[in-house]
């Protein structure tokens, strides 16, 4: 009788791991700096939302270096980052932690690793479709579209707030397009075809 090896699926051979690691690192600005991580935890300590993360920023770097990319892509961490850059400015090794998290977020979006109606994804999509349509953001439209797809019940709750903002001139009922919205669309179309920076 064979003893099932429970550890096996988790294990990766070192050469596999390194190849995958270097492949991933190329996609991240100054990504090679993560080799210098000393696991001091300053990033986690500086992060205002790390208390809500399943994998802290320090652990993210450790897991990434160890080739466990999938674990990171399935975590809450990348979606919780508010882009405040506290980790980045305090990192004694100069690692661009925020940009690393952005890159991982883009990777997860690419691979569509998130639940359906996922708030971050829905919001991003609603936002960029506004820019494509009008060249600028349209706050009321963004709010309505976002809530319709994520929490329709909240739409009623938010109506009072919306009305208040409209009467104070701090929200517009109709969108306002820029004159040369065709220029913005041409730029977006072209940039979407090109490689990544």
């Amino acid at each position, binding site marked *: 009788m064979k003893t099932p090896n429970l550890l096996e699926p988790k294990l990766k051979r070192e050469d596999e791991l390194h190849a995958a690691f270097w492949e991933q690192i190329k996609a991240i600005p100054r990504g090679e700096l993560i080799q210098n991580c000393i696991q001091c935890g300053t990033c986690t300590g500086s992060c*205002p*939302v790390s208390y*809500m993360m399943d994998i802290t920023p320090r652990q993210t770097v450790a897991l990434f270096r160890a080739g466990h990319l999938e674990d990171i892509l399935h975590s809450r961490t990348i*979606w*919780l980052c*508010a*882009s*405040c*850059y*506290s980790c*980045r*400015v305090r990192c004694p090794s100069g690692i*661009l932690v*925020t940009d690393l998290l*952005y890159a991982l*977020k*883009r990777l997860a*979006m690419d691979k569509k690793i998130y639940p359906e109606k996922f*708030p*971050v994804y829905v*919001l*991003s999509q609603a*936002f*960029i479709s*506004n*820019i494509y349509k009008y*060249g*600028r*953001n349209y*706050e009321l439209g963004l709010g309505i579209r*976002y809530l319709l797809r994520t929490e329709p019940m909240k739409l009623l709750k938010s109506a009072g*707030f919306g009305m*208040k*903002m409209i009467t*104070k*001139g*701090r*929200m*517009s009922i109709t969108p*306002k397009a*820029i*004159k*040369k*919205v*065709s*220029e*913005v669309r*041409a*730029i*977006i*179309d*072209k*940039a*979407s075809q*090109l*490689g*990544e*920076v």
Partner: protein
Amino acid sequence: MEYAYYPGCSLEYTGKPYDLSIREVFKTLGIGLREIEDWNCCGATMYMSIKQLVGLAVSARNLALAQNMGCDICAPCSSCYTILRKTNRHMAWNPHSRDLINEALKAANLSYDKMVEVRHPLDILVNDYGIDQIASRIQYRFDGLKVAPYYGCQIVRPVYHFDDLDDPQTMDRLFDALGLEVTDYPNKVRCCGGMLMTTFEDVALHLNDELLRCAEDNGADVLATACPLCQMNLESYQSQINKRYNTQHNMPILYFSQLLGLALGVEPAKLGIDTLLVKPRDLKLKPLSLKVAV
């Protein structure tokens, strides 16, 4: 003295009081502000999360439009400020990025090669115009109003520009010159959560509760911001925070430019004071005694 004005989408509506007060303050001080014609959204953090190149190229259209105006850009929204500066950094540091951004711009018959400096109005007012100059122009002085200057994230991070990363002083010094009592509190650069208020409300409510609490505990009467998203998060969610955490927050959240405008003698309505959701109570503003003519 003139600047190319990039208001950004927020300042058109939710951040209207910021736009009004920046324009009034610049006009009163005689600093030129020419709006970049037909500017578009900077792309905010949204494109950065999807495809960075698209974000940078969209943002670069504004820089390309501004490059022939012959002056620095004035960008009051912290997010626009950071994104536009980030685009400049990509252009300057990485020839590959520069080529790709310009290739995308070419689709709209644009190109960007002269680097335009992107500045925050706080930096312009304090470092170009000068605090002494401002002090000589004020008509009113605050007397006894305690203000917590809140810098948030993106005007001090990620790259050092015009003020300290951990303990910035620009707003503090400006307020001091207006007679305001500046509250010393540890959270002046702590994050408000930004877009998390939409995507992970629980987390953002907690962050804002902490910010308000910290400013109150240290004696602030009002809190001053330099960013439309911070202002919105801190101001419009107070009742929700009060319900959830059983608190009594009722803190007016003003833009630094509104306080400056008041001291310069601009009518409150022209600064959008009446459009704030938490009404400021007595702002303790006193006219300066007339100087005796010799």
